[in-house]
């Protein structure tokens, strides 16, 4: 899922600026699960903004609402009235949610309350880790189910580099060496011979390097009846 974290409160205050009627919009999907922008966080942030603006001598009208998924038009339609009444929408969705609101409500000024961090999973209570870089050409079948694009600091296809020590990456002792993990899994699954193959340079066109991406599925498209 998408992992995000809330921006510092002072930065959020700056983004809200002089707007009087503020609508905080939470999202009920990924950012709810990672405790960054669900209904609970939206309500707390709205209350904090009300209190802070009152203390600053400029009390604002801050309300909150949470939709099931900010990244789908049909859910945004349900809050159209509240959005249109607001001077400013503070989105607690990921970057996709913020842009969906901007795109769906052309006359609305929307600002982000979160920093969208990565695609990952909760490793333990309160700990989230990156797992996918959305490169558009999955190689997990070659790397024992451990992604070197997302998890090796250098995205090596023929790792490990010389910086692998005691299972961790040269960048930081908190980063497990992805290639050590790949090695260990291939070894335990008796597939070490896969490491002897040289992987060619990656085609990054399917990643962001080819420009913004789009998928069109003709089989799912709706066509008007002739």
């Amino acid at each position, binding site marked *: 899922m998408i992992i995000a974290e809330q921006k510092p409160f002072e930065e959020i205050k700056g983004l809200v600026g002089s707007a009087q009627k503020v609508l905080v919009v939470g999202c009920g999907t990924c950012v709810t699960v990672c405790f960054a922008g669900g209904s609970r966080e939206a309500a707390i942030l709205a209350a904090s903004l009300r209190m802070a603006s009152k203390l600053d001598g400029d009390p604002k009208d801050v309300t909150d609402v949470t939709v099931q998924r900010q990244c789908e038009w049909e859910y945004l339609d349900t809050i159209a009235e509240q959005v249109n009444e607001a001077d400013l929408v503070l989105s607690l969705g990921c970057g996709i949610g913020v842009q969906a609101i901007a795109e769906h409500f052309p006359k609305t000024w929307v600002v982000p309350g979160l920093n969208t961090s990565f695609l990952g999973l909760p490793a333990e209570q309160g700990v989230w880790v990156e797992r996918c870089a959305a490169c558009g050409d999955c190689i997990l079948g070659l790397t024992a189910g451990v992604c070197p694009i997302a998890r090796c*600091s*250098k*995205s*090596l*296809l*023929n*790792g*490990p*580099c*010389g*910086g*692998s*020590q*005691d*299972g961790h990456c*040269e*960048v*930081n002792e908190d980063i497990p*060496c992805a290639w*050590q993990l790949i*090695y*260990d899994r291939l070894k335990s699954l008796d597939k070490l011979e896969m*490491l*002897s193959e*040289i*992987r*060619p*340079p*990656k085609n*990054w066109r399917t990643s962001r390097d080819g420009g913004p991406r789009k998928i069109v599925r003709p089989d799912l498209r709706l066509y008007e009846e002739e």
Partner: protein
Amino acid sequence: MADQRASNGYVSGSNLERVLKSGNFAVTAELGPPQSADAEVIRKKAALLRGYCDAVNITDNQTAIVRMSSIGAGAILVSEGLEPVIQMTCRDRNRLAIQSDLLGSYALGMRNILCLTGDHQTFGNHPQAKNVFDIDSIQLIQIVKNLRDEHVFQCGDPLKGLEPRFFIGAAESPFAHPIEFRPYRLGKKIKAGANFIQTQLVFDIPAFEAFMEKVRALGLHQQAYILAGVGPLKSPAMAKYMKESVPGILIPPELIQRLEDAGLPWAGKSKDELTKEEKKARSEAWKQTGIDICIELIQKIMQIEGVAGVHIMAIEWEEAVEPIVKGAGLYPRPVVEPLIA
């Protein structure tokens, strides 16, 4: 012209290749470019190395700190009559920039290249930089080889004219982890096209002997020239730092003890109590011991079957190369004339 050079028995005809192919025990050294645009620094360092090595590695923004480019410094070295080994990392350039730099450096007279992944940029002085790593070191080796032998760019398009004919080097860190995979990774680099290998610093001879035994079992020493990395330790503190903090460096405790012992005459006083002269004398004693240890390591390494030379990394201490090479009995360096086509 290309065919002529290809048929003279060498892949590049570089001095390093000629020395290695003639069966001489090769010596390469290292030159770190300055954090400035001062060509004089390169000339001064070149003067310290002239005659004491067969080729000089020029580092490529080592430890991710911005310095004069390896190719720029290499061009100065060529004009000084020394032969550079251009180090090229995958950290700062994508496949377009790398290939154009290969063409440019060859046109400037450079003939040896060392293909490296590169230290991560978070180590250096621009940790905010976007990293590239479009390709990795093994893929870089393939690119250099395909330019030379197949006359094609990475995309498959043919070169339009003269191809760059590099003697291709790669690095290997025998003691980085997973340690049991390292000889096989070396094999991948050789399979990709590496002609010579320079290893990470070796201080632990039994560990390196064990590595070389595996290398020989795989027959790799017959497919590429393996140069063992060596370097003089400057002080016990430097040795401890390298042992603790640099991945893949093993330093036996007895070597650190020898350095400690060299400083014993000054051990009674704390750092603040030592005069400037005493500190200098202590530093000289440590350095001499570091050089002595390095000479002994080279002499032991020369006995190991399958080792074709040494790569001396005297980091920001190029003056040490002369006494090390002389002390190890590797001076003067051989002069190997090019084969006639």
